[in-house]
């Protein structure tokens, strides 16, 4: 694969770099950007190493649109009428701002940047029995405008209430606490579609069989959670390599293979095992 030599491995980067080193890396990344498979994104700051997640399953790449927002990027699919992934770069400062933004009012809405035929409508979810599950959490957003963007249906998948309201919310909060502890994190979140048959809402919006979140903390490591989108969610903690194999998308293309292969020591948020950390 081009541009993935040892010098590009994100796993090798120390936490803090002197300014000159940053300039050298930036130049290297620019060189990487001219290679067609890399950095075609318009909002590289949301991605680890400035490179967006790569679908290895070409069927996923069909009819997709990148949407850049203030705090996160979305790859929206007109096939599922949901995001395929959303990406965020969380920092200690962004989490502090999000946590002090304590009282929020917002409104779910269709995304004005997408054709209505290509995206979910509010009516698809109303009285469907499934929640509108945020992929980039509202709780990560630092102000009203960013929070409004998180209420776009382009950031939403149909999620079982038992998952969305309980263990998924606990896990999102854990990621915020971990970011505060460690300083920064790159986070990629999305739906998985496993099996021959998939459920559809209103014959329009595909219901994921699971939802996942991949986390990369520079200098520390990486890993992912995947939880079944069911009334009694089953949770697994897996390596980035295993996640990539299952979902057909590599969330961190620039990450060193050795880092991708490790199963992280993340808590499992399944029933009875959830450990609330704040």
């Amino acid at each position: 694969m081009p541009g993935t030599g040892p010098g590009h491995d994100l796993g090798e980067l120390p936490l803090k770099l002197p300014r000159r080193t940053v300039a050298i890396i930036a130049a290297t990344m620019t060189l990487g950007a001219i290679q067609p498979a890399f950095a075609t994104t318009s909002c590289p700051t949301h991605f680890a190493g400035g490179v967006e997640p790569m679908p290895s399953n070409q069927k996923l790449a069909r009819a997709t649109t990148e949407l850049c927002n203030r705090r996160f990027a979305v790859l929206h699919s007109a096939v599922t009428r949901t995001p395929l992934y959303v990406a965020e770069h969380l920092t200690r400062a962004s989490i502090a701002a999000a946590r002090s933004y304590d009282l929020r009012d917002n409104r779910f809405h269709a995304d004005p940047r997408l054709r209505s035929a290509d995206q979910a409508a509010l009516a698809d979810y109303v009285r469907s029995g499934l929640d509108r599950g945020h992929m980039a959490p509202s709780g990560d957003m630092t102000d009203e405008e960013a929070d409004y963007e998180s209420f776009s249906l382009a950031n939403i998948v149909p999620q079982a209430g038992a998952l969305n309201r309980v263990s998924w919310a606990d896990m999102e909060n854990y990621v915020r606490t971990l970011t505060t502890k460690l300083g920064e994190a790159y986070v990629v979140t999305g739906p998985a579609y496993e099996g021959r048959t998939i459920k559809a809402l209103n014959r329009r919006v595909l219901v994921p069989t699971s939802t996942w979140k991949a986390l990369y903390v520079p200098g520390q490591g990486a890993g992912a959670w995947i939880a079944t989108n069911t009334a009694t969610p089953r949770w697994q903690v897996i390596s980035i390599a295993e996640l990539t194999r299952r979902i057909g998308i590599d969330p961190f293309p620039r990450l060193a293979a050795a880092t991708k292969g490790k199963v992280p020591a993340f808590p499992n948020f399944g029933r009875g095992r959830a450990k609330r950390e704040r």
Partner: protein
Amino acid sequence: MTMKPFADDTASTTIGELAAENGASAVMLSGSLEITRDKAGLKRAQALKALADAICQELEMGDLPDSVEVAAATTDDVANPFV
């Protein structure tokens, strides 16, 4: 709070980690809320009271049925487009 309980299916209001989602037939609250004994805690408690008052006010005004139908998942099976 700008949400008017039961008036629409789109509004959401959040107090700390407690989220309220509006719906024509139900308002859904989820998450948890820590109310500390300080100024921030008072703001949260007042927001919670305003929300509960608004919900009660709407319910007290209406001629309510004994129970309203709660939606169950209505989905169809389709072939997985990605396999």
